[in-house]
């Protein structure tokens, strides 16, 4: 047993962190927010060139040949910087939908009756219907968007949503694709993004608590603030081991547990980070509300707390 990151995994994490810092730093994120752009095609192409989407495709098919643990590290980094876009759907569609692996095709996902994220920017839509994975592209996709969906004013300004309003043709089943695996991995990757966000808001809170002075000392010297920060770390670290272990085992129950704990860590940590920031935390200018809104959104995607808890309860019998 050796349950720690390997040197290659550490290098991969450093590499993607540097790539994201260069291509989607805070200024870029804020610019996207102001401009209302949800998917930045240039960034998407650069992620594709770096192997973000093709990570798990075999090398013979032009991929990087790595596994689920490495994907989790990428998604954790994406979660840290609030990278928008249907990352999980595009990553999972690599190899099945033309252009997805290279970052040339943006793929959104429709999972049962949940709202669809980034549908307007998508070149392809994967629909999970029962046990099948269906694909809509081109004219059929445009027809679906026009006739069967309507935009929703989204809680998260960087994640536009569409609601499905009418029954419609959802294309042909993708041969060999299994909806259960697609969902399972989607749950895990969303959990990894939540973990990245939870770790980032912990850092933001600590940084603020060290610098901000009140009553003549940094607020981080006050025990009430210390304890908020300590609990944030505890939540993030428990979620980290849950997510990493689930990536290694790919066990459905373990993945459900990882999503449950990562959702809680992302949401609670963002709330506590906002609290540590005080009045400043309630402003549009501080990034913390963007983490909270994304965390709330993701908590409702792929697998909710109620669904996860039922899965975990059934495992006890």
């Amino acid at each position, binding site marked *: 047993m050796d*349950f720690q*990151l390997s040197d290659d995994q550490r290098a991969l994490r450093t590499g993607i962190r540097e790539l994201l810092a260069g291509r989607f730093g805070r200024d870029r994120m804020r610019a996207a927010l102001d401009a209302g752009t949800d998917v930045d095609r240039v960034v998407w192409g650069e992620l594709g060139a770096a192997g973000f989407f093709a990570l798990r495709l075999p090398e013979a098919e032009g991929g990087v040949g790595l596994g689920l643990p490495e994907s989790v590290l990428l998604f954790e980094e994406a979660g840290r910087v609030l990278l928008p876009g249907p990352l999980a759907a595009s990553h999972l569609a690599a190899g099945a939908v033309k252009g997805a692996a290279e970052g040339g095709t943006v793929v959104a996902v429709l999972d049962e009756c949940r709202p669809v994220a980034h549908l307007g920017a998508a070149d392809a839509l994967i629909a999970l219907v029962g046990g099948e994975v269906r694909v809509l592209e081109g004219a059929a996709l445009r027809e679906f968007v026009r006739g069967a969906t309507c935009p929703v004013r989204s809680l998260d300004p960087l994640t536009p949503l569409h609601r499905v309003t009418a029954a419609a043709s959802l294309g042909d089943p993708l041969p060999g694709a299994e909806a259960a695996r697609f969902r399972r991995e989607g749950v895990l990757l969303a959990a990894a993004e939540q973990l990245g966000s939870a770790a980032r808001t912990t850092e933001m809170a*600590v940084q603020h608590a060290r610098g901000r002075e009140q009553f003549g000392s940094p607020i981080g010297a006050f025990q009430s603030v210390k*304890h908020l920060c300590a609990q944030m770390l505890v939540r993030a670290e*428990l979620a980290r081991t849950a997510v990493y272990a689930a990536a290694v085992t790919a066990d459905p129950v373990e993945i459900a547990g990882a999503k449950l704990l990562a959702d809680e860590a992302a949401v609670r940590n963002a709330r506590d980070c906002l609290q540590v920031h005080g009045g400043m935390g309630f402003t549009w200018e501080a990034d913390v509300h963007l983490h909270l809104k994304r965390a709330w959104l993701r908590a409702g995607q792929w697998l909710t707390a109620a669904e996860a808890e039922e899965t975990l309860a059934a495992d006890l019998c």
Partner: protein
Amino acid sequence: MTDLSYTPEEEEFRARLREWLGDVLPGLPAKPRPDDWPGRRAYDTAWQRMLYDAGYAGLHWPVDAGGRGATPTQHLIFLEETEKAGAPYVGANFVGLLHAGPTIATEGTAEQRARWLPPVLCGDEIWCQGFSEPEAGSDLASLRTRAVRDGDHYVASGQKIWTSHAEVADWCELLVRTDPAAPKHRGISWLAMRMDAPGVTVRPLRTLAGSTEFAEMFLDEVRVPVSHRVGAENDGWRVTMVTLSFERGTAFVGEVVACRRTLAALAAEARANGRWDDPVLRRTLGRLNAEFRALWRLTQWNVSEAQRAGGSGGVPGTGGSVFKLRYSQARQELYDAAAEVLGADGADLDREWVLDRLTSLSYTIAAGTSQIQQNIVAERILGLPKGR
């Protein structure tokens, strides 16, 4: 997160251990009642002797201290398998094996190691811990028990409290103030005191669970040879920190395994008595499943980290604080859920889990309260300033 599977060598170690446990456990004496202290000592030391004879005593201790020098992973497997098999808990040997022993092994002289370590490993001698005082609990360094030099002896006077196993212990790892003028962390020494020395009085303390798990201990001019001091005079605080780092590591491995077993039993009970149909309770049990699975993974993460660092035995460091904070909370929630499952029987002290619910209240207090642990995490891991 390279590998969660065990190596063939680790699996072989597990298989041999399992086989041995299957052979010896049926021959153990009957479990004593909780208030039968001589019985508990006899039971716990008999188990320690069996471990010793089979070569499992001090598994994670260094070889030159009489241990087996096992890797942290082997120690994890040992704790997991013994708990799964229902083997006795370390019990009265706890302080000797997990506190005093490792401290003497790390900080003691050759003579001290030769004198004190072998009887700990074979179960001949029991240790207790004389750290906490009525005015020095979480703020341990403010302890007031004094020891004054008189020739080649220290003369110790004061009061200790929460001393587990004091009734049956042969030795006490005693923290005393040897320089009242020094800053509070600097004037402390670590002594090995015989419990039958003149001037030692032990009085059992009754806990809220009704049992006498602890005792208070009064010291009235107790003479302790200077040769029984481990580490330099007035350097006892540093020596103690070496000791405490072991407590927050693998000390809880067996208990996480036990909690997972209890959770499965709760689900079975809930199915049998119909409480499973309550979705709120069912979801609570599901959430606890996620908690204890993750805590088990966190243990494996910490053990792997220690193993990579070349360590053996415990998991020294602050990572243990992160674990303890969440574990102590989850354990209390587990027994609250048990009360929900039991319904009206949750008030019956003879029902399984009811006494455990009371006992679980100590987990957020013992070995550093949750509030102190949060300060440790905030200051030592997150680097927040010391303050109010």
